[in-house]
């Protein structure tokens, strides 16, 4: 059959026949992610006000070296070069950062919002060349599952931080059980991070997705069903946990600075 060898010419950057405000969604995501990058970098470099009472900011957990009682191996190590800025957060933050950066949800979202590839569905793109995740450099996104292993370990540390946040020391040095607003903030943060991490596509694949026959494997099936259930809303878990982890740091920071008061509920 006779036909033109080419489709109608591709659209130019931003050109579309869509009549809705297609740019709002990528713009909002751009602002949210940018706010997170700016805030987390700033907070991580502060190196102070990251604990308050029994609370430890999730940006600083686990605290390997540092001045707070939460530190595992004591104060800043002597071998740390004096010219290099030290903060307990920069020792560990690359792991959760890498996890989010290589997450399938975030990838899709920032390719759209930050790289306009595409700016939104059926909207023209700025560049005609395209490598996708097929070649260097983005082929490295395939490293995601290794960040997942680290994220699972971090989840244990964060759960431990919530436990710690249940034990308050009074002026006389007595430790007693209690719940403050900060405890709830840390618990909510860990829950959201749990929902995000356990619904990870790589985890879903590993626990059961890889099997074509799962009906007769009850344990794998249960794990796959749980992970799939969380995975259905992976985007929401990703966004909510992002906002919450920022808020948890901010909460502890402002309490520590004396600007906010941490109410004891119990």
């Amino acid at each position: 059959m006779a036909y033109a060898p080419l489709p109608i010419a591709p659209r130019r950057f931003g050109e579309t026949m869509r009549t809705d405000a297609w740019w709002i969604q990528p713009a909002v995501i751009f602002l949210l992610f940018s706010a997170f990058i700016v805030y987390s970098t700033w907070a991580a470099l502060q190196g102070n006000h990251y604990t308050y009472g029994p609370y430890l900011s999730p940006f600083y957990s686990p605290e390997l070296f540092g001045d707070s009682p939460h530190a595992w191996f004591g104060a800043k190590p002597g071998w740390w070069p004096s010219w290099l800025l030290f903060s307990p957060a920069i020792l560990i933050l690359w792991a959760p950062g890498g996890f989010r950066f290589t997450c399938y949800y975030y990838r899709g979202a920032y390719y759209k919002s930050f790289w306009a590839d595409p700016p939104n569905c059926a909207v023209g793109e700025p560049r005609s060349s395209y490598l996708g995740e097929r070649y260097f450099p983005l082929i490295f996104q395939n490293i995601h599952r290794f960040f997942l292993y680290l994220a699972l370990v971090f989840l244990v540390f964060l759960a431990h931080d919530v436990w710690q946040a249940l034990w308050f020391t009074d002026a006389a040095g007595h430790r007693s059980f209690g719940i403050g607003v900060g405890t709830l903030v840390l618990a909510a943060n860990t829950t959201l991070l749990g929902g995000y991490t356990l619904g990870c596509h790589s985890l879903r694949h590993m626990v059961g997705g890889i099997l074509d026959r799962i009906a007769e494997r009850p344990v794998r099936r249960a794990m796959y069903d749980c992970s799939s259930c969380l995975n259905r809303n992976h985007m929401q878990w990703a966004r909510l946990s992002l906002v919450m982890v920022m808020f948890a740091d901010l909460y502890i920071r402002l309490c520590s600075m004396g600007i906010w008061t941490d109410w004891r509920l119990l």
Partner: protein
Amino acid sequence: MSTATFRIWRGERGDGRFEDYPTTVSEGMVVLDAVHQIQSDQANDLACRWNCKAGKCGSCSAEINGKPRLMCMTRLNELDLERPVTIEPMRAFPHVRDLVTDVSWNFRVKQKIQKFTPTAPHAADGTWRMQQRDIDRVQEFRKCIECFLCQDVCHVLRDHQLHDEFVGPRFLVHIAALEMHPLDTADRTAELREAHGVGYCNITKCCTTVCPESIAITDNAIIPLKERVVDRYYDPLKALVRLVRGGTKGESRAT
């Protein structure tokens, strides 16, 4: 009864222009009804493809107000009729005439995909046994009506025109239906990475957004396939396990 204007792409083989057709519309109409009305009253030579008018044949794909959709499943009350409603042919395929494109590239792609290769029959009478639970996953993919709207919206095909290197979301769904089938024994992982180009997908999910069958294309088909490719090619730990255990087949293959 009120009047709405439909701004329809008219032309042949890539060349064309929009033409406005005002027509009366009534409650319950879909875009395809309006196109048929225009065809019979005002433009007898207007070319459009359709068949079932029930969202099941996948023939009437077009771009309505810039969004890839089935004309027969787009009700007029979902659209702003104060403004002209634009109707264009799909942009990812060669244009034939008016709203018709040549989608035969898709059929050629399908021929390149390894066919279903079942394991030996489980019973002496030549039949197989499957658990419903195991077949549920691929049943989602078999809902596909081959409307090719996902192919049309996918920027790898639409904007970058990598038709020779990337099979597109529809065929990744097809491959997923075969690869994840509890009876299938073929191994398509190497082709997925090379000839089928799964790595070109940057998981921006436009295909999922437009699928009229609500198939979770990205989450349930493409990403799990990408993970199978990672298992084989980008996971040194798995490579080590394979080396120790021997063989290259994943644990997913049917027996």
